[in-house]
């Protein structure tokens, strides 16, 4: 079934690619952004990057120039606002040695700040600048150019007409020179300025970036507004500025490329394996739901221990407690996690959910998947992810992580802390239940004077499973299921 569908998708994709062949593109060097732009910036055309102060537009430009320098293609950065020295300094904070590239002739930082002491008397044009750029480009054989903060130049003109005319001249000149250009411009959110509207019309590709604060958490978003002659991702995409520059995280790719579920893998608990008809399936996603103290973490750690013994790696994303406290707490049910951590089969990453925005959390999680190549991932607990900003933020984080795990064939455990005893109502788990393969419910039940723990496998896609409530105990030898 799966194969023909996939082939159809591939044919469609190939068809689309063929149609788009007309436009030649230059990769931005930012992997996620290239995906959104379906390959990169339009070659020998102008791309406009608009955004407020601190939105990251200059870094996008610089990163694109560096990507060029990496392949031996020189580039020019024209600075209308920032000092050359401070750009060098800021770049070194991202680990980029601009001075070295300048010496090699792969990069030219052009100071285009107009002296504040200059006196204006009568009309003028930017021909001097064009002559300088032209000469530099020729001498360096530069094909790409970033014009940073063009708005600073426009302030010199007191008439919108003149402003437009100069921009038009600049644009025409850049096209004549066959330079691929990225122009950044400051925009003020919620303010429709004709200046920028004009720029949007002029450019072949327009990207807007912004930085916003929702419930005290800052997030960065990027959107492609237009792209003449090309398809592009039309959503808003979160991005982060990390130690190595911009990282764009496209939330979804057009085609689901989930791997089929794999063979059974033991839960680490013989009784539970019976209930699950052999265990969890590899590459499946499991939701473990229960109120505090119901044994969710214990269940996940038992799995992690068993995986470690098989020589498989588990990435444990903990939003509730530190690795040390988790190791300490798990000694009580007889789990020795310390040695697993030491051997690297269990990697615990603890984060405070509210410490970063959702895209930064995602960035760290996806980077860990790349670096550690784990077979299994545990998220403890998805209920805490709401503190990344909102329910929507948590949903984005969990969906994207799940999607990536699916594509990589990673088994995923999402622990969800229910807030009431009526946990069946909370089964949805931030709206992700439909893509969850297996749901394990843990609950307490009052029987006479005692509280009994019960476990129910509510669903297990692609597998037989018991549909009974199984009583269980947490002992110093882990979890023990009562025979039914």
């Amino acid at each position: 079934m799966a194969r023909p569908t996939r082939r159809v998708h591939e044919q469609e994709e190939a068809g689309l690619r063929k149609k788009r062949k007309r436009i030649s593109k230059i990769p931005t060097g930012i992997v996620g952004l290239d995906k959104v732009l379906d390959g990169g910036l339009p070659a020998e055309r102008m791309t406009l990057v608009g955004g407020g102060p601190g939105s990251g537009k200059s870094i996008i430009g610089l990163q694109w120039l560096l990507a060029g320098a990496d392949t031996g293609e020189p580039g020019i950065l024209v600075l209308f606002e920032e000092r050359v020295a401070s750009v060098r300094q800021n770049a070194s904070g991202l680990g980029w040695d601009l001075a070295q590239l300048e010496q090699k002739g792969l990069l030219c930082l052009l100071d285009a700040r107009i002296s504040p002491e200059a006196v204006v008397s009568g009309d003028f044009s930017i021909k001097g600048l064009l002559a300088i750029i032209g000469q530099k480009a020729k001498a360096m054989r530069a094909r790409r150019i970033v014009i940073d903060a063009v708005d600073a130049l426009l302030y010199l003109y007191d008439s919108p007409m003149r402003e437009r005319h100069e921009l038009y001249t600049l644009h025409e000149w850049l096209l004549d020179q066959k330079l691929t250009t990225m122009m950044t411009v400051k925009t003020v959110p919620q303010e429709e300025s004709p200046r920028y509207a004009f720029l949007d019309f002029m450019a072949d590709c327009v990207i807007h970036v912004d930085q916003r604060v929702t419930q005290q958490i800052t997030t960065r978003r990027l959107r492609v507004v237009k792209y003449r002659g090309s398809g592009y991702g039309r959503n808003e995409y979160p991005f982060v500025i990390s130690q190595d520059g911009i990282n764009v995280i496209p939330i979804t790719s057009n085609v689901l490329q989930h791997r089929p579920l794999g063979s059974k893998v033991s839960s680490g608990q013989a009784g539970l394996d019976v209930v699950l008809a052999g265990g969890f399936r590899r590459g499946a996603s499991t939701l473990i739901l229960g109120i505090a103290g119901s044994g969710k973490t214990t269940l996940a750690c038992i799995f992690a221990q068993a995986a470690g013994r098989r020589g498989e790696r588990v990435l444990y994303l903990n939003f509730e407690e530190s690795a040390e406290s988790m190791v300490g707490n798990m000694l009580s049910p007889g789990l020795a996690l310390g040695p697993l951590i030491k051997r690297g089969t269990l990697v615990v990453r603890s984060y405070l959910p509210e410490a970063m925005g959702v895209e930064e959390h995602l960035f760290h999680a996806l980077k860990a998947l790349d670096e550690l190549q784990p077979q299994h991932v545990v998220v403890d607990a998805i209920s805490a992810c709401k503190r990344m900003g909102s329910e929507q933020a948590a949903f984005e984080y969990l969906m994207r992580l799940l999607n990536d795990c699916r594509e990589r064939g990673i088994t995923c455990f999402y622990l969800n802390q229910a807030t009431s005893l009526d946990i069946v109502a909370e089964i949805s788990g931030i709206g992700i239940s439909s893509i969850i393969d297996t749901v394990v419910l843990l609950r307490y039940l009052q029987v006479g004077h005692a509280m009994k723990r019960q476990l129910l496998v509510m669903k297990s896609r692609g597998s037989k499973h018991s549909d009974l409530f199984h009583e269980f105990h947490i002992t110093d030898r882990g979890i023990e299921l009562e025979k039914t």
Partner: protein
Amino acid sequence: MTSRSREKRRTAPAGGKTYAFQLFVAGNESNSTQARDNLARLCREYLTGRHEITIVDVLKDAATAYTHHVLVTPTLILIKPLPKVLLLGNLSDTRHVLAALRLIGGKQ
């Protein structure tokens, strides 16, 4: 290297300080032509016999424009006497220009 693009006009100094100007133009575009004319007229009227003008055409000599950080044309730089003055535009506002060049008292 710049002989093609520069034309020097020199007049013998006759009393007062000599004013040395560098005027950056872009070929014969109208603003540049106007600036040339405006500067010439101004020198004739106010700096008779004590001015020195070097004209640089940025279209032919971008390197000099780069060295002097000239981004717009026309740009007039007063090199001597110090302090340096930087004037952008076709110099059409005579009073404004004279004030900036310290040839008449403060701006009005």
